[in-house]
């Protein structure tokens, strides 16, 4: 027991550092994928056939293959095949590559949620705006957008909770996120080895994080209940 209490601060410190990286990856992915997903959803709804097809294929590829493969290819392909390691080496390079892979992957998922949200708004809303002399841009920004947001919050919440857990996949390119940090104590790190309990602790970090997010997202859903 004494050793546990001696090891605890060391482990918690390492996990905190790892979790910070997890949160950074989560935050950057969300900040990038939310707007990019909207842009992709416009692409898949384009009236120009070739643009629509291109975006549909992109979405199909990113949703149809494992995120883990995407991570590996995006990280290693430039260096191994093009002999140009564009991401740079070290933790910073891994982080950038991970962000690119996560943003692209999640933007494709988000785009489908956006598309569903936009398409579920009755055509009468747009027509009412048009006959009142509003431009299409105004109709989107002032009439459809909030209705769309209201509709996509529940499916989006689902994806966001999944994203928190999916960040652990970045472990495959040795990004030093929280799982990587916990696992280090199994192999041996800072004088601690063969310890599996730090891994259990990582689970608690995820639980707390997703608990907070569930509350926040629930509040947003509640806020939008003022209209139907």
């Amino acid at each position, binding site marked *: 027991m004494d050793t546990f209490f001696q090891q605890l601060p060391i482990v918690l410190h390492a996990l905190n550092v790892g979790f910070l990286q997890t949160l950074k990856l989560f935050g950057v992915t969300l900040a990038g994928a939310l707007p990019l997903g909207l842009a992709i959803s416009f692409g898949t709804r384009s009236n120009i056939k070739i643009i629509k097809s291109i975006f549909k294929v992109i979405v199909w590829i990113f949703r149809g293959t494992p995120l883990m493969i995407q991570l590996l290819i995006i990280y290693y392909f430039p260096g191994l095949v093009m002999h140009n390691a564009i991401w740079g080496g070290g933790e910073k390079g891994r982080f950038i590559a991970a962000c690119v892979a996560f943003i692209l992957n999640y933007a494709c998922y988000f785009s489908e949620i956006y598309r569903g949200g936009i398409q579920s708004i009755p055509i009468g809303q747009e027509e009412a705006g048009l006959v009142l*002399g509003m431009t299409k841009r105004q109709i989107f920004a*002032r009439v459809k957008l909030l209705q769309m947001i209201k509709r996509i919050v529940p499916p989006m919440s689902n994806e966001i909770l999944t994203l928190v857990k999916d960040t652990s996949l970045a472990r495959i390119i040795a990004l030093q996120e929280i799982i990587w940090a916990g696992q280090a104590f199994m192999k041996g790190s800072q004088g601690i080895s063969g310890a599996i309990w730090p891994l259990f602790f990582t689970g608690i970090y995820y639980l707390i994080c997703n608990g907070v997010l569930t509350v926040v997202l629930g509040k947003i859903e509640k806020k939008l209940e003022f209209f139907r």
Partner: protein
Amino acid sequence: MAILDVEHICKSFGRTEVLKDISFSLEESQVLSIIGSSGSGKTTLLRCLNFLETPDKGTMKIRDKVIFDADAKTNLSEAQIRENRLHFGLVFQSFNLFPQYTALGNVMLARELEAKGRPDYKAKKKEILAEIEAQAKELLTQIGLAERMNNYPHQLSGGQCQRVAIARALAMRPDILCFDEPTSALDPELTGEVLKVIRELAEQKTTMIIVTHEMAFARDVADTAIFMDDGYILEQGNAKELFENPTQERTKQFLRNYQS
């Protein structure tokens, strides 16, 4: 001079001809009612007037100024279409209120957005918005919903929603206000309050085109009437005449079905 001249409008959806050579005119301050069975083209005609559909042939003129000509080579810009369609207002069967805005917000939104394009908007923002709000409140008072102006559409009854939709259309000060079966989505109980508002607008000499299945109302409120069947105008003229002494056998048959 007629306020509206519609000449030889034709419209097809794929192979289905929905409007066949539609011509009519409307005088200022008059009410025109359009009757006919479902699928006869009444709604499509209103949608053409409001530029929600583009006719394949024909012209439309407001006070002798051409606002639509199917043969014109130049495509109208989006801004020009917007300007032309503002000659008309449209009240939909299904209201189509904006759910995230209050009754007042619904009436004000389009005018607020329009005001943003004015060159003096930045300098006189407060006065302009105050004027828009005052006008919206006046309209809501006129339709008897002053007390409900801060309610959201889902907190209003169908009849109240439709009255807000009428106020919203009036806020843009259209030359001609069009109604597309304004009471068809309402319980019989709520129909009366909407018809009353339209009747009051007629008394105030609002120029209106009303597509409706309320025959008694169409006869009473309208100056002229059009009977449409299978995309044609079969009969048009004085409303009382058309309802009481229709000349066409098809019109007689249609009106008989409504009386029984």
